[in-house]
């Protein structure tokens, strides 16, 4: 049980895929223009992440080492396609907003990376924990970034105006430069806080 919890919490901060491991960035930067899209993307990602981990772990007995990568790809691709089809039928507006980033989940480095580094070497329960942890880490990172970008770039959160009327939004934040600056800022802040915490714990 402790192991499950440890693996779960790992993906949220210590090995946060987006801000620490720095993989899977494409979708994070592109979809973080507003919070609604970010959460939608996060949930789609989580579905594929968790089920891929489960099935990669499940199929370990019949996955020879030499062809493991193609097998990972087929498994991840299957769940990505399922997500794509289901979103197209039931959530067409979100599907339209997220665009090509839904099918691109199949090459999200986080999912393939965890399949290789974790799910292929661990049992199903721990793989679920890892998948959940990575998903939570991904969701909070992309949502915070989207929060910053939407707030500063449009003055709203999820379409609800938050900033006072005299606030003039800086359009740059919704545009590509803002994405890079936003995440650079987040990583810088995270590094700074970890250094601070390390220094405090040494006294």
């Amino acid at each position: 049980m402790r192991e499950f919890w440890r693996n779960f919490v790992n993906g949220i901060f210590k090995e946060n895929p987006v801000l620490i491991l720095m993989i899977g960035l494409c979708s994070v930067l592109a979809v973080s223009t507003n919070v609604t899209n970010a959460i939608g993307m996060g949930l789609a990602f989580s579905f594929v992440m968790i089920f891929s981990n489960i099935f990669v772990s499940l199929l370990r007995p019949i996955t020879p080492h030499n062809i493991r990568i193609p097998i990972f790809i087929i498994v991840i691709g299957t769940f990505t396609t399922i997500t794509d089809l289901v979103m197209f039928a039931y959530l067409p507006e979100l599907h339209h907003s997220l665009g090509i980033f839904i099918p691109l989940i199949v090459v999200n480095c986080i999912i393939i990376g965890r399949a290789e580094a974790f799910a292929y070497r661990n049992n199903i329960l721990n793989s679920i924990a890892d998948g959940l942890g990575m998903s939570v880490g991904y969701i909070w990172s992309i949502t915070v970034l989207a929060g910053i970008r939407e707030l500063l770039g449009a003055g709203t959160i999820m379409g609800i105006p938050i900033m006072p009327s005299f606030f003039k939004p800086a359009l740059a934040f919704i545009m590509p430069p803002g994405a890079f600056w936003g995440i650079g800022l987040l990583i810088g802040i995270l590094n700074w806080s970890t250094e601070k915490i390390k220094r405090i714990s040494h006294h």
Partner: protein
Amino acid sequence: MGLLGKLFTLFLFASLVDNIVFMRFLALCSYVGMTSQYDASIGMGIAVTFVTVMASVVTFFIYYYILLPLNLVFLKIIAFILVIAALVQLVEMVIRKTSPYLYRAMGIYLPLITTNCAILGVTFINVDMSYNFLEIIVYSLGVSVGYTLALILLATIRERLNFSDIPNFWKGYPLVFITSGLLALVFLGFQGMAH
């Protein structure tokens, strides 16, 4: 505007106006990971160019001559990525035989070309925009050139940054991203070219 003119505009669009790294946010993992070394960046750019153009051609035929007629469009995602994986395997073998130095310099990022979202992204865009055969070649070439440009730009900047005095928590990746944001601002200027 003649055919050549249209194709040239498409090329400029793909490489600059809609630059795959700074505007579309694709291929970021390799962009951030490979640009610490200038040589590796060029090698990566060339490898990606080759895979992207070849993948565009192969997936073009698979989509229009197999998937569509047999009503198997829902297998698009898996089919396309498997094509790319096979091509990357090919490129890896070729590089290992012809330039062991490059092979070692690129290290783990070579098999990682498979997960390069730009390559898969281009194959999807080719289909979404219903580009014909000539257009997919020009578009994929344009995107690859734009990608290589982005890599080279950041690589040269990073090599100079190594000699600057920066506080610890900005070191490394935060600065990479701030810089990229500035580069993105520059490329945003190309949007004016669209008119």
